């Protein structure tokens, strides 16, 4: 089983989710995070004085999949998150030793 952590633009989230759903991977966990990469923050101002906000809003996606599905899912995420502009984000893949479905206490690949 593999864990996919993707950091993408919030505005691409809907497309990514819909693509995953079409592939049949409904299970997904998301959160808002702040990112700082090649793309830099924005300048805001308060009562005339500027200040730098170093981070931009990004959506973090966590999807755990079985090994066989890894490539398909990673590609679906990457393709739907891509705009080609700086700030598109990154996808990190790592290993998962076990998965437990809380409701049923199933374990392993069946629980994914």
């Amino acid at each position, binding site marked *: 089983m593999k864990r996919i952590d993707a950091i993408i633009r*919030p*505005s691409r*989230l*809907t497309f990514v989710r819909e693509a995953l759903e079409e592939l049949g991977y409904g299970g997904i966990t*998301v959160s*808002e995070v702040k990112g700082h990469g090649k793309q830099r923050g924005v300048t805001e101002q308060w009562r005339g004085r500027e200040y730098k906000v170093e981070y931009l*809003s990004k*959506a973090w996606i966590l999807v755990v999949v079985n090994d066989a599905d890894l490539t398909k899912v990673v590609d679906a995420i990457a393709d739907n998150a891509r705009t080609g502009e700086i700030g598109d984000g990154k996808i990190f893949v790592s290993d998962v030793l076990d998965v437990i479905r809380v409701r049923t206490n199933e374990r392993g690949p069946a629980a994914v």
Partner: protein
Amino acid sequence: MSQWIRRGRLHRPLGVLGGFLLAMALFSSAMAQEPTTDETVADLVAALDSAWLLIAGFLVFFMQAGFAMLTAGFVRAKNTANILMKNMIDACVGGLAFWAVGWGLAYGASDSSSGFIGMGNFFLNDFEDYAGWFFQFAFAAAAATIVAGSLAERLKFSAYLIYTVVITAVIYPIVVHWAWDANGWLTAFKEDPADLVMANGYVDFAGSGVVHMVGGFAGLVGAIFLGPRKGKFGPGKRVNAIPGHNIAIGSLGMFILWFGWYGFNPGSTLALTGGGAALAAKVAVTTTLAATSGGVAAVLASKLITGRYDPGLTINGVLGGLVGITAGCATVDPWAAVVIGGIGALVMYGGVVLLDRVGIDDPVGAFPVHGCAGAWGVIAVGLFSTEAGMAAAGYAEPSKYGLLVGGGAEQLVMQFLGLGSIMAWVVVTAGILFAAIKYTIGMRVPEQEEDRGLDLMEHGLDSYPDFGPTGPGIFSAANGN
């Protein structure tokens, strides 16, 4: 008189006084019907008194916004829209109910000889005292709104719709009839002083008892029938705090209420002429001093007892001071207003502690503020009212006045009679009302709805969808950023 008014519409640049003189001239020649000085003066008196009622009524109405912000700030984010809806609909349903029935039972012309209930002028029939109606409507809406706070975060909207009609149409108006209609059995406004039930009758200038106690006790009864919010009382004797979600709008609500109170109390002179203005000015001062003293008492008490300056208690303390002075604002001296307000806040504090102890859950403290400090206000009239104050406020037996300032106990006994009657009436009728609702359509939302928040289930809404933790935030399709 229509020709006088039309003048107003002629927006010519004459200057106000010039315009008036020209218009007078114009019309007098055109119509040969110039009003005499005495007529003009009578018109002025009527106009000024009427305007006072209207303006005061506007301020009292604005208290709806205060209640809305206060209670919304004191509940959790997930129930914000629900309590706001209840506040909005209070004013709406209450207005219609008071139009259709409430006024008629309070001040209806064909009074029953018993002094128990008015009858007539339903739907504003055969009726022209619009300013009076408007002012009283605003009071009725306030009484109903108070209740919503006690029942917040768990009451079904349908149950709410029913009780709010009954309170503004029946329960509250009958108390008004008793206390404020010239035919009411408790009233201090008998044409013939010999008809007074005792002393000056029940003295409650602006309604510590008539309005606030009614709302506060109805809320208490409702809260008992409804039961506490899930999680409020833990296992054993543990009492959990459930903090309000937005102290900023809560404070705003307090300030709006205080502002509106200047319509509530000074407006209750009902007239400016004939000494009304001087009385209203005094009332503005006593109201101010009681509010300030309530705030100070609460903040110091909270610091002494909890070690911190507690904002929720301070807000409620100001309100406790205001509720406390409402009955006596016209008849007590300024120094007494300071005392009454301070004690009002402490009584409120005591009410908060008491409810926790007996396991009743009143999320915004409506009972401590309106019920407890309201009762205190009614009693305070019998303790602090001065003879001069009673006379200046127009009460017929100023020789009976406050016990602590040398006026004997008779007025105090009268106040307890009024207090007891109102309390009994409200507890019994509200008890029947809430029991009837509870055992028919039910009062309480399902547990799952309470967990998830009433906003979503009753109103399909997230009150703050762009902020965590309750809403879609950036995850909404339409947010496209």
